[in-house]
């Protein structure tokens, strides 16, 4: 157990959107997360970094309860969204996921048209009053995802026919369409080429402030480029959490320093 020292004083922030307190995740007997506490704010992009298997993706998936779909997974501790415990029995997981959207590692558009991909969430949650309303939502979401200009003439082509980068922006647009408050991104660029990656990063910049964004990434340069706060995970522990520039220029923990300087990972 890493001692709670003053180095981790940055753990909490003012006015957090989501906060986790002593969260432990088990897969069967195996403990994947060993008591993580962290706050995620509305005004900045938070990056989770760390070597493979450190638990950063697992932790991300607890934030919208996607771990519920894994039969053997068990979550302890408390996670709140606007002060409300998301693991409380009264919490409707459907509502939660509408408020906390997610973008996955590999672009996973549904095998439907571009329009239908975006309209999927609003339709499920009954956000559009009619066809005209839905058209507005689709256009707005695609514009925010930076995809509108590229696809406005072929909205009824299949979403799977787009390029990888476009597919990922479609998935971001799909998540935006249900008006979430938090967007979780699980290594959103790991399957993309550098140009597509640059576009996604630019998009993340534009979305900042409107949504609380949490991004898991393998790529430290990416964390440095897109995030304002960075959390370093190692072997299921949250080792260090702080302002991104501090973490990269002046890490307080030995393990963080080793990782950032490429000693391991």
């Amino acid at each position: 157990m890493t001692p709670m020292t003053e180095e981790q004083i940055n753990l909490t922030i003012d006015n957090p959107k989501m906060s986790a307190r002593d969260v432990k995740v088990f897969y069967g007997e195996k403990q994947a997360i060993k008591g993580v506490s962290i706050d995620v704010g509305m005004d900045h992009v938070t990056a989770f970094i760390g070597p493979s298997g450190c638990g950063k993706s697992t932790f991300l998936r607890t934030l919208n309860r996607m771990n519920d779909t894994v039969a053997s997974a068990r979550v302890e501790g408390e996670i709140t969204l606007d002060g409300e415990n998301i693991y409380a029995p009264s919490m409707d997981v459907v509502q939660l996921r509408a408020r906390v959207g997610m973008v996955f590692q590999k672009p996973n558009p549904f095998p439907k048209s571009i329009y239908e991909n975006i309209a999927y969430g609003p339709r499920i949650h009954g956000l559009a009053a009619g066809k005209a309303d839905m058209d507005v939502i689709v256009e707005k979401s695609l514009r925010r995802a930076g995809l509108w200009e590229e696809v406005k003439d072929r909205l009824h082509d299949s979403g799977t026919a787009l390029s990888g980068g476009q597919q990922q922006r479609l998935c971001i647009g799909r998540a935006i369409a249900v008006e979430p408050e938090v967007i979780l991104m699980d290594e959103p660029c790991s399957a993309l080429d550098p140009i597509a990656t640059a576009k996604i990063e630019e998009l993340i910049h534009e979305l900042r402030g409107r949504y609380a964004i949490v991004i898991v990434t393998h790529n430290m340069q990416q964390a440095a480029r897109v995030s304002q706060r960075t959390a370093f995970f190692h072997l299921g522990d949250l080792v260090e959490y702080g302002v991104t520039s501090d973490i990269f220029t002046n890490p307080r923990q030995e393990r963080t320093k080793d990782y950032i300087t490429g000693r391991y990972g």
Partner: protein
Amino acid sequence: MTGPAILLLLAGLGAIAWVSARARALRLQTVARATGRRDAVHSLPGYHGWYVALWTLIPAAIFLAVWANVVPGLVTQSVLADPAAQSLPLDGFSRSAILGEARAIASGDQAGAFNPLSQGLVEPYAQALNKYGVAGGVLALVLAFAGGAYAFTRIRPDFRARTRVERLVMASLLIASLIAIVTTVGIVASLLWESFRFFSMVNPIDFLFGTKWSPQSAAMGYGNDDAFGAVPLFWGTIFIGAIIAMIVAIPLGLMSAIYLTQYASPTVRKWMKPTLEMLAGVPTVVYGYFAALTIAPALRDFAVAIGIHGASSESALAAGLVMGVMIIPFVSSMADDSIAAVPQSMRDGSLAMGATTSETIRKVLIPAALPGVVGGVLLAVSRAIGETMIVVMAAGLAANLTVNPFASVTTVTTQIVQLLTGDQEFDSAKTLAAFALGLVLFIVTLLLNIVALRVVKKYREAYE
């Protein structure tokens, strides 16, 4: 020398060839190793053994196979050349009957002759059989020795016995797979030929589009016109196999696949899936029993009770319902496969949008799996329309063109069974009609299978 004796002898020779060739190769290997070059012998001794053994056996075996087909002709010729054969009648039928009897006596299958003429031919027959039998045996042995000796002399350190044996293994595998294909081609050819004969008696248009099916009346001499309209059979087949059975099988199969892939816990799935698939292993005659003795009477009583006219104790509904149950595992296992093949990421994507499991199934999984499901259904239809036993037992024989599910209808397969069971003359339109029906059935199921496999294949590629 008798056939089994020769085969045993050949097998013995093969074994000897294997042992001796292997021993020789081993010696060569030892010698080569002694000189310090471990790669000096190209192939392992066992391969040399197989090489020589195969050279001993295969030429002799091929010769025997050819010989067995040629000998009867040669024997008959030499018997006919005998003076005793001069008194035979010239008429082909009784002539061959006498020859057949003489042959049976000569080879010991029959004790005495009914026809005195054949008694005289027994002796020449026995002689000829013996002569050719011995000749064949000797030739086979000579071939075996020659082949073995040739191969044996080729054993040298650098001889690539392994390559040769591997090539032979490949050839034998190829032949094995060709046999299935050749058989199919043969079946199709015979179907085509007999159907052709049928269509020279009955106009294909009348057959395919006529609505009156009464082959018995044609057989009783009322003429072939109007007797072979197969539309009632086609309708009965479609009504039972593609409509009633599918109304049962598609929803049940699909829903059980959804339950098993999406909701069932691993333990439940582990038990339920094999149990469900056991349905496919129940012999269809058992289903037939069930349909004919349990379901059909109950349905008839029910129909009578609610006042439906034309209810029969053999009904389309009984056969279709039971067939539908039989087909469930086909639909469900295909649907199961295609739903399971939809990537987990698709499911996660939908759940992460706040969709419930059932919304995810309805709006994402089923549409994505649809081509696979359709392929499965087409395969199930092709299975259902070719199914025979249930409809023979439960659907009836009356060629009714009706949409009343409680009435008796008949199917293509049932009629084929009817036309071909018992003693039949193979030159009447009545019997040949069975082949025409078989051909239609074959073509339809073939097309269904091709379409289904294409659909499934295309779909499989979509996510890879």
